């Protein structure tokens, strides 16, 4: 299947954890023939295509993202209630890796856990402001580096990271 510009944008917006700005999309495309205008008109085309679908692209402060259309909240909340392992083991492990190994990328977390990171967990952590992006690693894809925030420490009533329980070498064996 040959993918159109619309397909690529659609896919990026659906896969990204965070809203994407036009500039970010341009950077990923890395194609000098594509302009900002192209991106914007593709997005509005996509919204026409998705007219009868359950989701649409909305424009929020930091860029574009797919959102569920109004009227489906009932079903969504039933879904979230059930499957809510929101603060699950995976959540704990993810935040513990970020706390103890920061700054880390999503790939680092995956390498350590041996399993892909749930996008919702990263998003929740960002929304809670327990973690923030402190930079990008200089490797292909320029992955974002996550670190914990003071809000995270506040939650545990700690002043600095070194007040977290220590992990000694013996325990890791």
């Amino acid at each position, binding site marked *: 299947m040959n993918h159109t510009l619309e397909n690529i944008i659609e896919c990026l917006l659906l896969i990204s954890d965070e809203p994407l700005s036009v500039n970010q999309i341009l950077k990923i495309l890395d194609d000098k023939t594509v302009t900002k205008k192209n991106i914007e008109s593709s997005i509005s085309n996509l919204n026409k295509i998705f007219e009868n679908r359950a989701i649409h692209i909305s424009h929020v402060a930091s860029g574009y993202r797919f959102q569920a259309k109004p009227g489906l909240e009932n079903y969504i909340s039933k879904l979230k209630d059930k499957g809510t392992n929101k603060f699950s083991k995976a959540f704990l492990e993810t935040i513990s890796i970020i706390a103890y190994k920061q700054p880390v990328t999503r790939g680092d977390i995956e390498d350590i856990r041996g399993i892909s990171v749930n996008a919702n967990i990263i998003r929740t952590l960002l929304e*809670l402001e327990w973690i923030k992006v402190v930079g990008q690693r*200089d490797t292909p894809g320029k992955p974002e580096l996550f670190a914990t925030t003071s809000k995270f420490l506040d*939650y545990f009533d700690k002043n600095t990271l070194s007040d977290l329980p220590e992990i000694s070498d013996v325990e890791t064996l």
Partner: protein
Amino acid sequence: MTDITAIYNGKKISQIPEDLFIPPEYLRIILEEFEGPMDLLLYLIKKQNIDITDLPIFPITEQYMRYISIMEEMHFELASDYLVMASTLTEIKSKLLLPTEAEDEEEDDPRANLIKRLLEYQKYKNASEKLETLPRNFRDFYVVSNAVDSKESKIIETPDIKIDQLKVAFLEVLKRAEIFSTHNIQSETLSVRERMSLILSVLKKGDNVQFEKLFNLEEGRLGVIVTFLAILELVKESLIDIIQNESMSRVYIGLKS
């Protein structure tokens, strides 16, 4: 086990040297590649390029024993499973030496069971190689689960986590990590990791900061050391550059460009 690749002193090693003098460091690297006695035996058999149904137990046993004794000499942490195999081989060898009655020679071949096990192990080894090539979630294909709720500003419920749970979770993760091939998990002291995050958030793209400015002398000697270690660690992880235009001039720190 035919494609062992180890790098020792910058040299690639893909074969166990033919003569049995193997420098201990080589051997350690090579032995760690084996997944147990069955794997080692299969390697020895394949190396000889022989028909497994006609397993020449004498030379194989001899070679196997030589490996074992070297491992013991080196105090290589020898799994008892290797010794179990050694005694199995010795037992087969002694049975073969005993005179047998000609009629049911076929039936009672003492090697039969070992051959069966070797073939069985090879079967699952093949399976594991096939499994490794399968497409994997997030590496070869991507799942969409990101469309968000229509509510713009949802209230995020704060999780109920106790601080000790963090430690327990991290320890569990470390134990698990041993199973995956990435082994670069050491815990630097947290104050250093924290300072690394802090330095990164101070630095802005294309805007270099004077080395000295990253230090806060009010923190005292320990604070200075922590900052210094954090800078070194960031350099090691190639996250920042240290820039000095000529010797004795000012040193700047900048994000890796």
